[in-house]
């Protein structure tokens, strides 16, 4: 009588370790190894004894500060203009919304270097918008910290928009109806009801956006250039360090890895704990 019972148990608990068929277990194990081994190698080969001195040089401190500041600014800009855009994509009835969404998400699939070139063509000193701006005001973006922020915003904002749009679609719109019957106009409803309801989605989007901005490389090096203190972010520093001092590059990569893990920690409730 025991055998059928145990069969029934394993069927009722498909998530249990014993419930994973070998045909899935093997490729899954390969996937895990493939994703985890490089990170483990980074830890194994890390110059632990000299880590402190490698990371305390002025260049590294500058790069780290620049990365954190620019990524935070990029996230802030993305929040200010990205959340309203997400609302338009999720809620408005305007025509061509599908096309708009596709356009907005193009930076997700565009090679970042191409994004950088596109930014130069638009906002560079000879760019479509940049040239009139430069001749009128003498302001030009490339090779400035502003350009770093713009490049990061370009690449990272779609992550925020997608995340917030998803939250808006999932949110129960009847709460907005309830707010309307209580006398709240659309602006107040958005501020005091919709926004708090989608706050977890906005937070997750902001974290993703920030992490992507922090890891930005291609668009930055193309549009903003590479000058210490002004435009040389952590990722550019890593790339340059690989040329001369691989140990320093590994040390810097560890810092970025630590930031990534922290980011995942913040997203844990949303993704890792999902069953």
């Amino acid at each position, binding site marked *: 009588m025991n055998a059928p019972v145990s069969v029934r148990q394993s069927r009722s608990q498909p998530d249990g370790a014993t419930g994973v068929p070998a045909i899935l277990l093997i490729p899954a194990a390969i996937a895990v190894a493939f994703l985890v081994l490089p990170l483990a190698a980074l830890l194994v080969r890390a110059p632990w004894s000299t880590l402190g001195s490698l990371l305390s040089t002025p260049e590294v401190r500058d790069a780290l500060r620049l990365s954190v500041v620019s990524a935070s600014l990029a996230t802030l800009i993305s929040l200010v203009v990205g959340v309203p855009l997400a609302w338009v994509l999720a809620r408005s009835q305007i025509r061509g919304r599908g096309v708009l969404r596709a356009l907005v998400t193009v930076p997700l699939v565009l090679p970042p270097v191409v994004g950088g070139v596109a930014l130069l063509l638009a906002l560079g000193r000879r760019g479509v918008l940049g040239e009139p701006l430069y001749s009128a005001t003498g302001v030009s973006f490339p090779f400035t910290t502003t350009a770093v922020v713009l490049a990061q915003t370009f690449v990272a904002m779609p992550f925020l928009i997608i995340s917030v749009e998803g939250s808006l679609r999932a949110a*129960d719109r*009847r*709460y907005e*109806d*309830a*707010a*309307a*019957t*209580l*006398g*709240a*106009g659309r602006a*107040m*409803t958005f501020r*005091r*009801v919709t926004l*708090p*309801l989608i*706050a977890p989605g906005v937070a997750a989007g902001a974290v993703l956006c920030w992490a992507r901005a922090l890891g930005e490389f291609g668009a930055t090096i193309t549009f903003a250039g590479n000058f210490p203190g002004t435009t040389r972010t952590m990722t550019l520093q890593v790339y340059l360090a690989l040329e001369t001092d691989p140990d320093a590059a590994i040390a810097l990569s560890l810092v970025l890895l630590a930031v990534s893990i922290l980011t995942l920690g913040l997203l844990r409730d949303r993704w890792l704990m999902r069953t």
Partner: protein
Amino acid sequence: MSLSAHVVIQRGSLGVDVALEVKPGEVLALLGPNGAGKSTVLRVLAGLARPHAGLVRLDGQSLDDPAAGIRLAPHRRPIGMVFQDHLLFPHLSTVDNIAFGLRARGSSRAAAHTVAARWVARMHLSEHSSAKPRSLSGGQAQRVALARALAGDPRLLLLDEPLSALDARTKLDVRADLRHHLGDFAGATVLVTHDPVDAMALADQLVVVERGRVVQVGTPVEVSRRPRTDYVARLVGLSLLSGTAHGRAVLLDNGASVQVAEASNGPVFVAIRPASVGLYRSRPDGSPRNVWPATVAGVTPYGETLRVDLEGEVPLTADVSPEAAAELDLVLGAGVWASVKASEVAAYPA
């Protein structure tokens, strides 16, 4: 504070056309099966849905007048609404939920808070004043939702299935509570429900809606005594038959004949209460003149008794005690005899 509405709106394949009048202090219940269009009517009154035609006027002011191009946005209407699952804002405390409408309508933070605090006390929610909705019981949440709708001092109160989210036990208390608060409310109230008990207990006036149309209007007593559709009859627990009266005999549409208490002539409805139907294993002798053979089509518990659905020339519902049911051996498909005294049969003009 009277509401006069004629709502015409297409909802998918359902065309809704409902007219209703509510006087100040009066509670009107829109009663009908799911999908009949009741909630749609309520959403139009709230301004959440746009009618295609008709007119919604509150105290002489037009809220909706499609012909004249008038449509007042929901947040500009002097209304309060209680939603089906209450829809309390999950991120706000009890007192902030109640104060929301006051703040939205321009009260200062302090003034809104003062009024909200009064409602908290009045609804016996003082212990839960700073609690978030998720920690409230169903009954408490219902009171918060009602307070939130009433705090803005609306002229029209709309209740969308206000009791359906509650379990049966809580429902009794909350229904009594709600009845009490509605009694204090000076404006017009429109209540949507599919539960006849809620409608009977809370409403002064019933409007029965089926498939987007009004099928019966009246006081709860009128409607429950003299249902005009099968749906209403079943709701109020009556068997409804239709036929033509010739004096004290009513010839049913299917050819059977029923003896009734009062003489009349012409088309009539015949209503029979389940408790007045007697069941027998063999044809009873003696006085009852209404005796028909029937077949048991269903037996379901109904309170202390069993409710027996009967098929035959006169389809009926009978209530019997469990002892009687055992004695009669009421299994599905069993043949029985049903009898009703003529004095227990009501006929009224169709």
